[in-house]
């Protein structure tokens, strides 16, 4: 599949007026949480800010990363861990990036095959609608059972090594006494191949963004067991990321883009526009999926499995409300602590300081100054992950972490607490 410049074929050639405007090209992956980009481009929000926003549909996160690095894209929708990995040079390529806008919070879910769910229900006494920790302990019981029977470990799919999906899955498993590096196998699988992999038995479950969980449910293959919103109520998911150089060289264009995205996000998060948004996302240029399925994530009305009724998951996907677009620095540090915890990166105090410079609430706020955005009221504890067990990166209850590593996580967390109070 080659990339499609969506705006070109939906809106026709650029008008004379548009030709005089600066153009910015952003890459995206067709997932429900590309909504803000789609709206900004298609509904004229970018144009009203004096820029032409072109979107380029991409097939892999590696592709997005490389095309930004090669200058084929000005920036992109990225997984929140990607700008951190790129800035620190963890995955081959070192490229300083800025993430001045959060495109979505939450939006992922963990799905297991119908067969695995039946085993879990039996082993863990599940009754449907169980809390994340109860489901996790049921999974652990099945893993123990399989081990005594000498069966190979279960395989779970996720979308990228530096994805929130990877860290959510690992965090949830570890909190439930499952060592994600020993008790199960984790494999990167592109979202469009997840459902097929479940059908063919290559994976027993996965963590992916919508609509892929719901598509697995609709195919009668799996059951959604946990949503990201239940693990971490307001966790960052996709960020707008641009090379540091672009932010320095074209601050006005970046500011215009942030304003356009902010207005688009407000529009997209308004239930009054839900059906229009769903129709837009269902188009072949975006998700090319049934509108009724896309709607589930936006309404937070998830169908866990057929023939069960829809279950309300508050904040399943948050696009704007309660300061969702403001990049939270402490969450960047949390992601870094997970990279350290799961041995993707060594822990350096200097790196942790660098991480503080990637998510940029200051750039976001400067762009919007004078706009309608308001800081969340004090006491709204958005940025603390919630889970079956309270979040604690230093927790010694995670059995496979040796004391040295706990110290590392504690060091990162300490930096976050000491320096992050301002955020």
């Amino acid at each position, binding site marked *: *599949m080659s990339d499609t410049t969506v705006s070109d074929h939906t809106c026709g050639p650029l008008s004379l007026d548009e030709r005089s405007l600066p153009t910015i090209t952003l890459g995206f992956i067709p997932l429900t949480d590309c909504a803000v980009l789609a709206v900004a481009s298609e509904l004229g929000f970018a144009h009203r800010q004096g820029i032409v926003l072109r979107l380029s549909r991409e*097939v*892999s996160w590696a*592709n997005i990363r490389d095309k930004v690095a*090669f200058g084929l894209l000005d920036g992109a929708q990225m997984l929140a861990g990607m700008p951190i990995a790129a800035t620190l040079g963890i995955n*081959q390529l070192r490229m300083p990036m800025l993430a001045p806008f959060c495109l979505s919070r939450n939006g992922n879910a963990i799905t297991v095959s119908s067969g695995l769910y039946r085993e879990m229900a039996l082993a863990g006494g599940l009754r449907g609608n169980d809390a994340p920790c109860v489901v996790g302990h049921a999974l652990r019981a099945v893993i123990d059972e399989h081990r005594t029977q000498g069966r190979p470990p279960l395989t779970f799919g996720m979308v990228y090594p530096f994805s929130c999906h990877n860290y959510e899955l690992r965090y949830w498993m570890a909190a439930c006494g499952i060592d994600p590096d020993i008790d199960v196998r984790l*494999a990167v699988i*592109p979202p469009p191949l997840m459902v097929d*992999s479940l059908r*063919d038995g290559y994976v027993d479950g996965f963590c992916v963004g919508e609509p892929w969980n719901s598509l697995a449910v609709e195919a009668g293959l799996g059951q959604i067991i946990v949503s990201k919103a239940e693990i971490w109520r307001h966790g960052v998911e996709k960020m707008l990321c641009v090379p540091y150089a672009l932010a320095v060289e074209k601050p006005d264009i970046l500011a215009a883009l942030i304003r356009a995205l902010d207005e688009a996000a407000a529009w997209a998060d308004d239930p009054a526009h839900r059906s229009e948004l769903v129709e837009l996302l269902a188009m072949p240029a975006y998700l090319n999926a049934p509108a009724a399925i896309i709607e589930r994530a936006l309404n937070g009305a998830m169908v866990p499995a057929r023939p069960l009724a829809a279950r309300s998951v508050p904040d399943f996907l948050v696009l704007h409300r309660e300061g969702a677009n403001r990049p939270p620095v402490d969450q960047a540090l949390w992601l870094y602590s997970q990279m350290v915890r799961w041995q993707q990166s060594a822990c350096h105090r200097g790196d942790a300081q660098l991480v503080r410079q990637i998510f940029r609430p200051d750039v976001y706020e400067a762009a919007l100054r004078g706009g309608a955005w308001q800081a969340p009221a004090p006491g709204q504890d958005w940025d603390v992950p919630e889970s079956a067990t309270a979040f604690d990166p230093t927790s010694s209850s995670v059995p496979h972490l040796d004391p040295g590593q706990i110290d590392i996580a504690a060091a990162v967390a300490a930096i976050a607490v000491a320096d992050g109070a301002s955020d």
Partner: protein
Amino acid sequence: MGDPNLTILIIEENAVRAAILEEGMRDAGYCHIQRIADMANLLNKICAVDPDVIVIGLENPSRDTLEQMFQVSRSVRRPIAMFVDISDTATIEAAVDAGVSAYVVDGLKKERVRPILDVTISRFHVFRRLQEELVQAREALEARKMIERAKGILMKQQNLGEQEAYSLMRRTAMSQKRKLYDIAQSVVTAAQMFGQS
């Protein structure tokens, strides 16, 4: 370089693109060429072929899978060549300048296949050598730290001088035909178990 016995794996769904690549490779003298057209369960399929070099399209969604495989397991790490269907000099130059890894972006012409493979393999070897040097340097540092820690424990517990503590470990390592690092690790582990570190 240009070893005709290399097994080359083409990961490509499109039969026409795969045919161009395969023809280019045969023209370049390579004869062990295999292809995966179905991306499902990629890891097992790659292990079954056990290729020396992998060639994959830039726009293939399974690139993320491939990257993770190589991050996780050193045993399956292979040089990867990438290609795109467009011939765009600026892109090629940007890719090379970025020094991303062992891959080159170029238009898909069969004449271009051989140089891409050659560059890929040579870059991979350079990259791997650097990686190995890095790992060795880290391990050496770790070993030194471990030995220092063990020395400190022995000095405290056995009331030895620094040189004596070192000699004791060294003698033990020689008599047991084990590495000094292993002995040091045992000392540290024992101290941890008995809560005296």
